[in-house]
């Protein structure tokens, strides 16, 4: 399988969210798709204790040449996929730069400090404005709401990956996704995951100013 040269090597992608949102699975799925295409991928992720309600961030390094460190240096993210809106900002504060692109879910998960009334959670419009200001492209989709319509909120991660497939500067496609899911999850879960992936891709096509890429070969 011939691999394309990357627009930037290494390409630095961050998937961020909150423990329990399927961040780890999402990063594995996306990275596995790239590895089967012949790229080197490194995922650096923090989980274990941080799974319990904390922020969970996966750094994905994609390269046509070699294995890169599991931590992206400060200010060097190329794409941020945020499964939770405020987490996009948290990541931008450290890894953001003029060129970074952001794809974010709109559904908040309130930190306990917010639930307890000790901290404030910014409004979605405030978050959107800040993310826009701090990135070159920012897109927000209602991934969790769509996932609930599909029957399980956890599918938001796959909807986000489907959406990202329209945004990435390297080739991942539906067939590629299918192979990876078959390897990763029980076969009974394939259909609903494919639905979520397609849904993400089509939502992306409908966003203003975006042209839908062909999603099936």
């Amino acid at each position, binding site marked *: 399988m011939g691999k394309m040269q990357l627009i930037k090597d290494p390409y630095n992608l961050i998937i961020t969210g909150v423990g329990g949102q399927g961040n780890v699975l999402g990063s594995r799925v996306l990275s596995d798709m790239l590895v089967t295409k012949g790229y080197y991928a490194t995922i650096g992720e923090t989980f274990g204790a941080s799974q319990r309600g904390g922020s969970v961030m996966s750094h994905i390094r994609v390269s046509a040449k070699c*294995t890169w460190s599991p931590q992206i240096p400060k200010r060097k993210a190329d794409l941020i996929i945020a499964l939770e809106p405020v987490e996009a900002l948290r990541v931008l504060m450290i890894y953001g730069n003029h060129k970074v692109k952001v794809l974010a879910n709109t559904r908040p998960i309130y930190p306990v400090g917010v639930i307890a009334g000790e901290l404030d959670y910014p409004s979605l419009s405030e978050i959107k404005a800040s993310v826009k200001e701090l990135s070159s492209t920012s897109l927000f989709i209602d991934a969790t709401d769509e996932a609930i319509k599909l029957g399980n909120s956890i599918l938001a991660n796959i909807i986000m990956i489907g959406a990202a497939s329209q945004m990435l500067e390297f080739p991942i496609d539906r067939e590629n996704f299918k192979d990876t899911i078959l*390897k990763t999850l029980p076969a009974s879960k394939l259909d609903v995951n494919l639905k979520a992936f397609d849904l993400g891709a089509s939502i992306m096509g409908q966003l203003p100013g975006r042209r839908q890429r062909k999603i099936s070969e």
Partner: protein
Amino acid sequence: MSDLIDQNEEVQHLLMGNDAIARGALEAGVSVASGYPGTPSSEIIESLSRIARERNLYIEWSTNEKVALEVAAAASFANLRSLCAMKQNGVNVASDFLLHLGLSGTRGGMVLVTCDDPGALSSSNEGESRHFARMFEIPLLEPGDFQEAKEMTKWAFQLSEEIKNVVIVRSVTRVSHASGTVKFGKFSEAERHAEFKYDGLALDADIGPAESTPVGYKHRQQQEKIKKAREIFEESAFNTYLGPEKPELLIITSSAGNLYSLEAIRVLGIADRIGVLKLGTTWPLPPKLLKRYLFMTDKIMIVEEVLPFLEENVKILAAEQAKEIGVKTFYGKNDGTIPMAGELSPDLVISALDKVMGIDYIAMSPAYERKLELSTLTAIPDRERTFCSGCPHRASFWSIHNALQMDNRKGFVCGDIGCYAMARLPCGFSTTKTLHAMGSGAGLASGFGKLVQFGMDQPVLAVCGDSTFFHAVIPALINAVHHNSNITLVVLDNSGTAMTGFQSHPGLTVNAMGDKVPSIDIARICEAIGAKVEIKDPFDLEETRKTVNRLMGNDEGVKVLILQQACALSPERKHKTKYSMRIDETLCLGEKCGCNRLCTRIFRCPGLVWDKEKKKAKIDEVICVGCGVCSSICPVEAIKKEETAT
């Protein structure tokens, strides 16, 4: 499902470092693997357990790390290849046996994998297991990336058989819990028959008894082994150099430090000025190899995690060879160029290189930094860790906390290791007041309970989980009963080693490989030891609170309360909603209620939130798992639970 046993050598796999280690062991023909779960090491044994039947392996989650090491050593004594995996502080637990194992030596290749956690990303310490290698005179290998994690583990078995001693492979979180691209090799086809030969002469390492004595002879023999390892290391392909012939600065590094160093050099664009000597064999260091590279330049920087282990050992070699290689200037941990605590990152190596090379690196244009400063949202709400929605620990600590408040004698709880270590945080109502090693809560309580004669009149409690109970609490409990210490031990029994991913433990009926096994009953053990035992459901808040108060008030020795409720993420409870929860908005008095938002301000379940607009409590249906506990905390009974159909 597992591609860990894929025989196709052409395909590249995306593998977690721990899986790469497991694959290396498989390719080496490992027969027995054991361990005790602990992040970031757990996936090694877990992955091997999933393919145990297909590859005819024996895989075990042992009661604790010391037993795990003994189980693996038995296999080695019977001429099988064996692996033992644990996290850094597990090596402390296993260390007494490890000291003696180093003296007796091994037969079938035996590898101890320790996964350290620099920065304590999921630990209550950032202990360094590398020092055990030097202290116990055992060879140490440190993989510098994912492919090497596989190759090195595989080779470690061969080395172990060559020198007839155990070999340590030391990984770290950013190797073990990161994933990367790995190409597979062939499986060993060698069939091994297990037999422990002991009839030979007492000093015969192959067919004599396996003993650490006579110490004089065995210790000298062990030192010959480590010398042999050092000779082998001189030629090892795991020690590599990248850089110019005459670098201005030589970086000597190991493990994840290798990837950080390479990244920092690329970011700064100084590859023509810096050399990187990546060492895979870090104890004993090969002196001739070091001499060759130290000769290249006068400035040396050591990049490693966490303590200056490599740094000190390199300095000793440099001092010994100073006459030939000249005087060197060292940069690293001891002179403060690199922080002495915490984990490293490419950025920390960049700033170290900045200092040493006099570079003024700016990560981002000042314009972007200004934008960040001006951003209206720099105060992003912190995400403090918390118990999951439906977690039995929240309910347990709610009751324990309330019991302590009602008792009002400044009673306290000694904490222990597990998710419930978070009980020191607001999510556990700041209930626990000590936190140390596995089983230390009960041990400390045993000691506190004997201070009455010095005037201490505070009630003493301790908590532990079910897996922790078996691992290290039993001796402490025996101690407390035997010495008539007046304490209450609460066992938070959530039916599994929940924090690390539901690995089996002696209290369960299924082992690591899925076989039915006899389970050991915690209550009966406690009774046999002589403690008074009660069992309750922590979701019954009032009954639990009352019981804690009653036990705390009883000053006759050791009381044990077992709170049984499965973890909300356990396979038996996950995706099963017992109750459908809702707020009756006609009953909720919102901010006018005298409770001062007890439900959200104090209870702090992520599934029960505050609706800012309506100023009333609200169930977040995406997060709530329907445990029903919150319905019993609302003073006006506005939180309604309804049993779901299934």
